[in-house]
């Protein structure tokens, strides 16, 4: 399909170009959240990325190139699938899935990495590094690096390397070096620490291709803008299919990139409720969870002021989730702001609820979702029963479940 002006991404789709009122301020603050808490050595690099992105986001040449990659490489636009057999379990509400699982590499992460890989080339850097939890962002980064001829190093918690061994193999096959991180909890947060250490050492020729809407300014804004296409397409598709806007939009929240990606185009539609579902792990009461927004407190983690799982002395508390992609004790600052302003609602979904939804979607619709996305599906089941059969609920199916088969085999004794 040839992109036409009518269907192509516009500067407003990508970044707003100043047309929206909810961009962070000059210091990267969303209200009291965000900002920069990083070693001074990194400030010039962050300034450089911010300045280059400011230019890129209104440069039609850049936007065309990004748009072209999304269409011809990532497989956009992704389709919208109505799932009536699944929805029977949600009180009969209409449930529509935004199929990010059908993108190349199998998750929404590809949108951000293609944008940032293009930005890396504009910055004149030859090497990218990234952190990864479930491995999806690592695979996506390794993919974009292979496509664009960039050297690629992925930091991944040793514990995650084990539970996502298939993704480790994929990254290696794509030519990336995967470094297992053995300190701390050996999960995503420790991979981020290690990636920052690499970046401060190699910043002259390396771009840190940050994978979620957290971290220091400008990452929360850049990652959001590159993921924003999810909601832009979905909003159009829901209108086409149903003739109206959805009552609610549901997404899973770890760091929060797929959620911001689908939420953002609906931000000014005040009647559309936004629901983010965090990983409740083994349950809020026993402390083994990743309920950053619903159980955490305000603090600083990985360069940004946001909600954090921390003890009374500011030490990070290790999170738990059956889904590696949601196993993170922080969250993007824009989500913290959306929580405080009340624009979005955040709730927990336990491992058990997520795995039930995972199996239910597979059985009723023939779609095996990522366990991350299954948290949003479980949330939609709950929400549908509350809202009733007239409701239309959009769910961001952020990724596919192929990578989770090891976990599923164990969980369900398959």
């Amino acid at each position: 399909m040839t992109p036409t002006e009518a269907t192509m991404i516009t500067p407003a789709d990508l970044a707003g170009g100043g047309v929206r009122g909810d961009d962070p301020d000059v210091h990267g603050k969303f209200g009291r959240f965000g900002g920069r808490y990083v070693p001074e050595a990194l400030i010039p690099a962050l300034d450089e990325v911010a300045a280059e992105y400011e230019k890129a986001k209104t440069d039609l040449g850049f936007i065309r190139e990004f748009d072209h990659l999304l269409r011809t490489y990532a497989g956009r636009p992704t389709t919208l699938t109505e799932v009536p057999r699944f929805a029977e379990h949600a009180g009969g509400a209409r449930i529509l899935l935004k199929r990010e699982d059908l993108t190349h590499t199998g998750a929404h992460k590809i949108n951000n990495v293609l944008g940032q890989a293009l930005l890396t080339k504009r910055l004149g850097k030859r090497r990218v590094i990234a952190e990864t939890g479930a491995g999806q962002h690592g695979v996506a980064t390794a993919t974009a690096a292979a496509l664009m001829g960039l050297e690629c190093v992925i930091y991944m918690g040793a514990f995650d390397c084990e539970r996502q061994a298939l993704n480790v193999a994929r990254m290696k096959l794509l030519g990336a070096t995967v470094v297992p991180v053995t300190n701390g909890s050996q999960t995503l947060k420790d991979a981020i620490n290690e990636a920052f250490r690499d970046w401060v050492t190699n910043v002259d020729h390396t771009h840190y291709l940050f994978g979620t809407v957290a971290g220091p300014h400008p990452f929360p804004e850049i990652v959001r803008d590159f993921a924003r296409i999810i909601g832009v397409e979905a909003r159009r598709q829901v209108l086409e299919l149903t003739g109206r806007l959805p009552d609610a939009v549901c997404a899973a929240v770890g760091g929060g990139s797929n959620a911001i990606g689908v939420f953002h185009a609906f931000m000014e539609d005040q009647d559309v409720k936004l629901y983010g579902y965090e990983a409740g792990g083994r349950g809020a009461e026993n402390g083994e969870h990743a309920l950053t927004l619903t159980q955490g407190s305000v603090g600083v983690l990985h360069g940004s002021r946001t909600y954090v799982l921390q003890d009374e002395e500011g030490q990070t508390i290790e999170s738990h989730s059956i889904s590696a992609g949601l196993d993170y004790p922080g969250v993007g600052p824009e989500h913290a702001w959306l929580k405080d302003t009340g624009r979005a609602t955040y709730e927990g979904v336990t491992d058990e609820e997520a795995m039930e939804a995972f199996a239910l979607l597979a059985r009723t619709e023939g779609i095996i979702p990522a366990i991350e996305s299954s948290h949003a599906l479980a949330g939609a089941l709950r929400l549908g029963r509350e809202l009733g059969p007239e409701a239309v609920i959009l769910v961001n199916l952020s990724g596919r479940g192929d990578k989770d088969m090891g976990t599923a085999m164990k969980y369900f004794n398959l």
Partner: protein
Amino acid sequence: MTTLQAVFDKARAEDRAALVGYLPAGFPTKDGAVAAATAMVEAGCDVIEIGLPYSDPLMDGPTIQDAVHRSLTNGTRIADVLRTVEGVAKSGAATLVMTYWNPIDRYGAERFARDLASAGGVGTITPDLTPEESDPWLAASKESGIDTVFLVAPSSPDERIARVAACCTGFVYAASLMGVTGARESVSSAAEGLVKRTRAHTGLPVCVGLGVGNGAQAAEVAAYADGVIVGSAFIRRLLDAPDEKSGLAAVRELASELARGVRR
């Protein structure tokens, strides 16, 4: 209580650089940290930085990460950090706390500044607190009469150096290289230029840290800086020692070597 100003005045009068040593509180044990820092002071350290152990030390290399992890595993709390400062300050050294921002943020900026001053601490070094976010901490520190030390890096453009230096009292911490903490084979050549550029924006002393680990390197840095900061090399001595007694002897020996270095 010895102030930073007194330290640098004295060093200048003796025509030498000041020696600054770093150790995290609670490492190798709570009492062991006080003993080791005291030994370092007795052997020639003018200033001690007590590290506040934090779960996510993203600008620290493997040596400090290891020590901090052990300290946290030992159950070190902020009250222990303050007790450590109190113990070390008795040795006569100007004693600072080096900490990532979140523990202070959570503890309360005013409360931390007050409690640190009460413990005999003279200031803080805050490696991930940027000037843009520093207002509450500058106000609290001023109120309690403690110094605020921030870092500049080789990558810092001049306007950034000016901005950071304007937030500093006591001294400016010049990171000698682009990287994390840890001893290196040689001191980065970027350090001297950075000290020179920093002096153009401040009359405060400028101390160099990251990658300094022996007497020769200390002498090299002392030739152009007001202070030499050593951390990982002390920790390495403690990590490698078979027992506490030989650990103390090893840090004492290193401090003596460095103290001779800054006097060359």
